[in-house]
């Protein structure tokens, strides 16, 4: 069976007055049904823009200049506005970072939830309400009947994010894209959400792309990982492979920067310098200036190569 989502050679560029910003530059990834893909990177690495591109949510002056996005074999990059509307919130759903911004503060939860059902299905209001109730119960919200009649401000941050997840799940989407949905939440609440999400993916068979800067969250949640740097996926593979045997110096640097149980009080190894401006990327590997293993051939950015089954790498001098 072919993959649920297959992105090949995606490039999303922003044509600004000061130059072309290559926010997403030659990104390829695949998501299987019922699997979780972690997309990791620091701010400005293009991880969120990759998610928005898959959802067709790239605003001017940006556009997808190249590449293909296949969902269940359908090419998404050529869809018109009407087709996108049928797809979004139905076959593909998105969970955003800040649930306060995604829920309408002046509408009750039931209005917002049934709207999502009625927009895509010719069912009665009663059926839509039933589905809303079931979706709330599924994400672990106590007494869903009562909560349906509440307004967003009556929920805590964690509960609001559950509501947002319930809305994303309500039409049983094939693919969910989650953009840092637990970053604003407390540790114990994050734990609850992660456990729900993990369970829901297994049960419903939906594919999930989990975008995060937090390697620790990804390591516990994802099946596969893509590490992004300056608009490109520098390394991808199964979560165990990437975290235990990182081959790209950037991945290694990221892992070493996280304080762990072995390092109390000792200086952390750090990646020198900072993320380059996406405006000024030359022909060289974007990580070259910060890389401890940079050599002569790094002057030309390497292409992604498949070094083993389901494992890609963009580096000419990888860690063995």
């Amino acid at each position: 069976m072919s993959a649920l989502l297959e992105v090949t050679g995606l490039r999303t560029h922003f044509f600004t007055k000061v130059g072309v910003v290559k926010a997403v530059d030659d990104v390829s990834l695949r998501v299987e049904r019922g699997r979780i893909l972690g997309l990791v990177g620091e701010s400005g690495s293009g991880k969120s823009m990759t998610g928005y591109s898959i959802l067709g949510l790239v605003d001017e002056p940006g556009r997808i200049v190249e590449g293909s996005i296949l969902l269940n074999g359908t090419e998404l990059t050529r869809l018109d506005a009407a087709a996108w509307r049928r797809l979004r919130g139905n076959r593909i759903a998105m969970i955003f970072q800040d649930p306060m911004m995604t829920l309408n503060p002046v509408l009750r939860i039931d209005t917002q939830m049934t709207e999502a059902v009625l927009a895509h299905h010719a069912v009665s209001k009663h059926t839509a309400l039933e589905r809303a109730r079931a979706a709330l119960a599924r994400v672990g919200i106590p007494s869903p009947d009562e909560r349906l009649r509440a307004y967003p401000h009556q929920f805590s941050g964690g509960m609001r994010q559950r509501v947002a997840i319930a809305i994303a799940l309500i039409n049983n989407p094939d693919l969910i894209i989650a953009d840092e949905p637990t970053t604003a939440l407390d540790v114990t609440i994050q734990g609850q959400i992660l456990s729900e999400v993990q369970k829901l993916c297994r049960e419903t068979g939906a594919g999930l792309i989990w975008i995060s800067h937090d390697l620790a969250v990804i390591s516990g949640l994802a099946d596969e990982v893509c590490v992004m740097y300056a608009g490109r996926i520098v390394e991808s593979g199964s979560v165990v492979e990437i975290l235990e045997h990182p081959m790209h110096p950037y991945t290694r640097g990221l892992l070493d920067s996280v304080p762990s149980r072995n390092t109390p009080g000792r200086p952390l190894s750090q990646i020198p310098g900072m993320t380059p401006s996406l405006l000024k990327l030359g022909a060289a590997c974007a990580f070259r200036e910060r890389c401890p293993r940079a050599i002569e051939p790094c002057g030309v950015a390497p292409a992604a190569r498949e070094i083993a089954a389901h494992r890609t790498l963009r580096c000419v001098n990888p860690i063995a």
Partner: protein
Amino acid sequence: MSAVAAPLLELRGISKRFERKLDLAGRFARRLGARLSDETVHALDRVDLAIREREVVGLVGESGCGKSTLGRIVARLLAPSEGDRLWKGRPYREFEAERERRERLAVQMIFQDPYASLNPRMRIVDVVGEAPVVHGLVARSEREDYVAQMLQRVGMDATLMRRFPHQFSGGQRSRIGIARALAVKPRFLVCDEAVAALDVSIQAQVLNLFIRLREELALTYLFISHDLGVVRHVSDRVVVMYLGRVVESAPTAELYAHPNHPYTVALMAEVPRVDARRRQYVPIRGEIPSPLAPPPGCHFHPRCPRAFGRCREEAPRLKEVAPGHVSACHLNDPVSA
């Protein structure tokens, strides 16, 4: 704790309440019989804390637990509703005299958001140089040399001092915030989520800076964070707060090896770690209660898997469970076990 000398900084029985009085409409409605009353947030409830010279104390807890309020009280940005603050064993009010100004500068704060805590219209030389000149630590004519020194100390290029904050990245702004705090020669730094807004690779740089400065300047830290990994990395001792109360305090290695309070145990279990793969999350139930109406007895009892009758009625006191390790839980009492 076997502190020989008086601790550098001590809090005794600190409580802080924030009150919101009813507005005019509310008072009118109450007169007509509506059941309304002034709202009181119990941010801190009789907190004791002693920090010794050159010690790094990590303060962890979830949002709304009062850790930032505590930090602000230590830095004297807020006054407590009740309780005493002591500096080197003397109550703070003794330092109000003009000649004691130096002592009052000894505690400085580093804020969470490196974007919001620098005035966007001031050049870095003014941001860092203003306070030491005002307080007479350096002459105005020596200001630039002094700022250059401070910037070098935090690992920044001193030639950038004429720039404005927006010309710097998040990591550089953090360094500027640290340089500003160091400029008045403090002995004690309160770091309130000082690395939370930074990317992982930049966070490592700033954490290393904190560790280096501690050695170089013999500083004492109160390091507030929700990130247990970061706190473990920098702290000698960790204090865990839940809903306005200290629930556990222990030397770092001891706390992470033998957490005693059920809340600490749960918190440790929830923290995602890079070395724990593909795990099943077993979350603790429920939400953090509102500090507007904290539950009676132990504040954690509605979520605690091991709560029993007494937890609902009586707030547990901090008791020593191992040398230097205190925990507030009824389960530690032999009678109730």
